[in-house]
């Protein structure tokens, strides 16, 4: 893909990413994330992974993010109050992240002269290719994934159901408070 387009998309992606971690309202974060995801999807398309790009948008943006949205609604999350404390952690965390970014980029650039792109076969990234890979070399992984999804489904339902044992998650202090007569536990 042309450099200008890449630059444009990269800028959007980074802006979106920062939007995720800097905004206070979870919904705004979510929107920013969705933006980034769409953007990454477009990048995929630009890299020749056409199918994957659209799959990315369908699965991530169309499904997973909406799931997040539901949860946010369900818990009725308002924007956080003023960020409190942990300044040290935030400071060093940001520095660490920046260092990581620097290291990785350096690594990627210095690893090898990555500039040249080997010519990709025709139909590269098409549904046919992907399907052929999935159902030949990666068949087992594919089947296992289906089982994983099933398990996740059951697990999610089991977890999110209202269970009386939920009190187990409370801190010991609270449990004691609960045990004390005439006390009310939120």
């Amino acid at each position, binding site marked *: 893909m042309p450099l200008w387009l890449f630059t444009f998309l990269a800028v959007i992606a980074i802006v979106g990413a920062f939007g995720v971690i800097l905004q206070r309202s979870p919904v705004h974060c979510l929107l920013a994330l969705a933006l980034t995801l769409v953007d990454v999807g477009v990048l995929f398309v630009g890299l020749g*992974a056409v199918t994957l790009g659209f799959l990315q948008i369908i699965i991530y943006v169309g499904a997973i993010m909406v799931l997040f949205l539901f949860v946010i609604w369900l818990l009725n999350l308002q924007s956080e109050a003023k960020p409190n404390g942990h300044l040290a952690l935030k400071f060093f965390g940001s520095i660490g992240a920046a260092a990581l970014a620097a290291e990785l980029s350096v690594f990627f650039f210095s690893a090898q002269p990555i500039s040249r792109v080997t010519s990709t076969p025709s139909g590269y990234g098409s549904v046919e290719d992907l399907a052929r890979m999935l159902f030949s070399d990666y068949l087992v992984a594919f089947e296992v994934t289906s089982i994983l999804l099933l398990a996740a489904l059951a697990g999610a339902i089991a977890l999110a159901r209202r269970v009386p044992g939920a009190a187990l998650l409370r801190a010991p202090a609270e449990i004691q408070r609960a045990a004390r007569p005439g006390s009310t536990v939120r």
Partner: protein
Amino acid sequence: MTTPIGYFMALSAVLFAIGVAGMLIRRNVIVMFMSIELMLNAVNLAFVALGRRVGSMDGQVIVFFVMTVAAAEAAVGLAIIISLFRSRETLNADELNLLRW
């Protein structure tokens, strides 16, 4: 001119780092979760880019699997968050310290 793959890698590195930062500096569990998704996507980008470079589909297939796993992970993770919220009535990572000594 066409973009060198290295740029894509660099971008994925930056996105990943941003995700890490979000993981570290945000208090809200859901947002931390989103940061994780962000990291996943950064890695996906790297996969696709490298796969493109060596001209093989394996990178894409792996990304495909990553997406599936991410879907499962999101479902379970969010379910956990819900039940967590039900019992603690907060999503502030500071107050969710059951692992505390």
